[in-house]
């Protein structure tokens, strides 16, 4: 293996500016949607007093969960000694920060009073996992920022391992916090489960790596830099592993619920209901987002194919969004159990499955968050040395032999 040379992308092509322009449009659409929703009030959205968290939260939670997962590539290199992944550590840190920024933008702009955010930071209620998350998210920016600095500043290189370890532990706590937003809600049948924290951690591994792969492949293709089979196979297999780990937790979560008679009704609603959630779960998350990517990861015909690896990563992202929709919207759509075992009805929609149709504005706000995240990455790799000049096998494969080429 030869030493890695990092270099900014040239950024003088029409394609580069077209990409930035497109991302700028997405961001503008997201900000416009946020202004429209805040100016009018949430009556212009599909959200209501039953489905209080809608499409923006699907995007926001997905991006936040993916953010911590995107850092995994760096963690594996600095903390777990996978030196082959070391050239990708910088991009991993940058993407983690970018995704978190995008997710938080969506979350904050959907608040009833985003203008009061500063006040929220000054009056933290430490019994609230939300309040802890404010600290965990801000800390993540700081810690990953320092971690990146130790990687990119030669004099600080010797601290990279320590910073990486700290960032790894922090990100585990952060995703535990995100999963616990739902896991600690005793009121709702679909939540109130301790397993949601580790389940979110496992999901973050696969979501984060999938987005990382898409960003990596696109960057190398568009920047015209070489990317060898070794890295593609490595990413493919790792993604397969993370997807199966996430699926394991999802299966255990549902089996545990199915075993308890009191939860069978909500499980029936989620897994076998005449609704969009069951379809999204089985087709979106299980088939497209898990089984097919796993097949691509491990079956020979798909190996070392950039196209198939991209397909697998894109499917994991789509499946992940479907899963978030099922958890967040489906969990609220199922009615609260005010009187377990009895039927309830009222003028406030008690006892009925709550309908929800996201409006364009909500979806645009979510997509705006994706735009922000990707724009940060594009600007980052243009201005600073995040990307290795080459990821060809000769440079990254520790067992590379010239005659194999």
């Amino acid at each position, binding site marked *: 293996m030869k030493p890695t040379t990092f270099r900014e992308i040239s950024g003088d092509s029409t394609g580069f500016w077209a990409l930035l322009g497109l991302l700028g449009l997405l961001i503008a659409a997201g900000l416009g949607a946020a202004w429209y929703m*805040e100016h*009018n*009030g*949430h*009556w212009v959205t599909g*959200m*209501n*007093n*039953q489905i*209080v*968290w809608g499409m923006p939260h699907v995007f926001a939670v997905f991006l936040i969960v993916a953010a911590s997962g995107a850092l995994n590539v760096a963690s594996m290199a600095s903390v777990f000694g996978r030196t082959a992944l070391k050239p990708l550590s910088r991009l991993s840190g940058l993407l983690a920060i970018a995704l978190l920024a995008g997710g938080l933008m969506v979350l904050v702009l959907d*608040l*009833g*009073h*985003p203008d*009061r*955010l500063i*006040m*929220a930071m000054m*009056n*933290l*209620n430490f*019994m*609230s*996992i*939300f*309040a802890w998350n*404010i600290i965990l998210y801000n800390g993540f920016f700081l810690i990953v920022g320092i971690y990146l600095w130790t990687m990119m500043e030669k004099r600080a290189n010797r601290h990279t391992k320590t910073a990486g370890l700290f960032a790894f532990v922090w990100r585990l706590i952060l995703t535990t916090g995100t999963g616990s*937003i739902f896991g*600690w*809600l*005793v*009121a*709702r049948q679909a939540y109130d489960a301790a397993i949601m924290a580790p389940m979110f951690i496992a999901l973050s591994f696969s979501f984060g790596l999938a987005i990382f792969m898409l960003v990596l492949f696109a960057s190398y293709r568009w920047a015209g830099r070489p990317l060898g089979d070794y890295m593609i196979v490595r990413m493919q297999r790792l993604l397969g592993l993370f997807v199966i780990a996430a699926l394991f937790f999802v299966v255990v979560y549902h089996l545990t619920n199915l075993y308890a008679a009191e939860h069978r009704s909500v499980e029936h609603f989620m897994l076998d209901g005449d609704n969009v959630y069951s379809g999204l779960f089985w087709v979106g998350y299980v088939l497209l987002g898990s089984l097919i990517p796993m097949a691509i990861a491990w079956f020979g015909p798909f190996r070392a194919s950039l196209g198939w690896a991209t397909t697998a990563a894109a499917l994991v992202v789509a499946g992940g969004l479907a899963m978030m929709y099922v958890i967040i919207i489906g969990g*609220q759509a199922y009615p*609260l*159990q*005010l*009187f*377990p*075992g*009895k*039927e*309830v*009805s*009222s*003028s*406030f*929609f*008690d006892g009925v499955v*709550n309908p929800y149709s996201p409006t364009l504005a909500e979806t645009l706000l979510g997509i705006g968050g994706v735009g922000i995240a990707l724009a940060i990455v594009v600007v980052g790799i243009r201005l600073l040395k995040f990307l290795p000049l080459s990821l060809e096998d000769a440079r990254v494969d520790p067992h590379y032999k010239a005659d194999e080429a």
Partner: protein
Amino acid sequence: MSDNKIDHYRRRFLGQTAAIAGGATLAGGLLLNAVAEARPADQAASSANRWGLLIDTSKCASDCDECVKACEMEHGWGRGSTDEQKSRPEQKAQWIRKVTVRDRATGHETSLPMMCQHCAHPPCVDVCPTGASMKRADGIVQVDKHRCIGCRYCMMACPYKARSFIHEDLHDQKTESPRGKGTVESCNLCVNRVDRGEQPACAEACPEKAILFGDLKDPGSEIARRLASEPSTEIRGDLGLDLGVRYQHI
């Protein structure tokens, strides 16, 4: 003026004063149906009290919603306000609602008013990142709308669906019940009335006197005496939230 005459005036004055004082006391009790003493404005709520409700559902008619109407008028929502015209029905606020509970096996139906249950361990207060969702020392759970950032986490956490988010600008508000777009609100047990020594609007309006308001910590109060001598239940008591609102005959 002779001493006798002075004594006569004095006696008449004292007698009249006593009559006025007695009359005022009785009238206060009868007219206002006061169950609490008014608390001076500069005095904080005390943990020596815990305000609560006892609701006898056997007296609650399914076609009656006087308690809901009284709440709407008192706090300026629903029929008590010209606001929330743009919001869809599922977006409009409801501080209190009538819920019909039907036993699947027997078909027996119960009608009851449902509002914030004023938990001793309120999940909405635990999850609120800013402390806007708060519990007073006397057990009243409410939202500080100046501190609420509108994250709706409390609405996710409340097992009783007691909270509403305001989806549009409001203009027609009551002075004692400020409300606003982008914040969450709910029953506050008519904190404005309780602090004046009055009972909540719903309890006062119930034609069947099915809603009894009082101090759960005062063993001499009617609510405490009835709770001690009659069976009552908490809704979702399994959650262990120690509710300030209890029901009978569910």
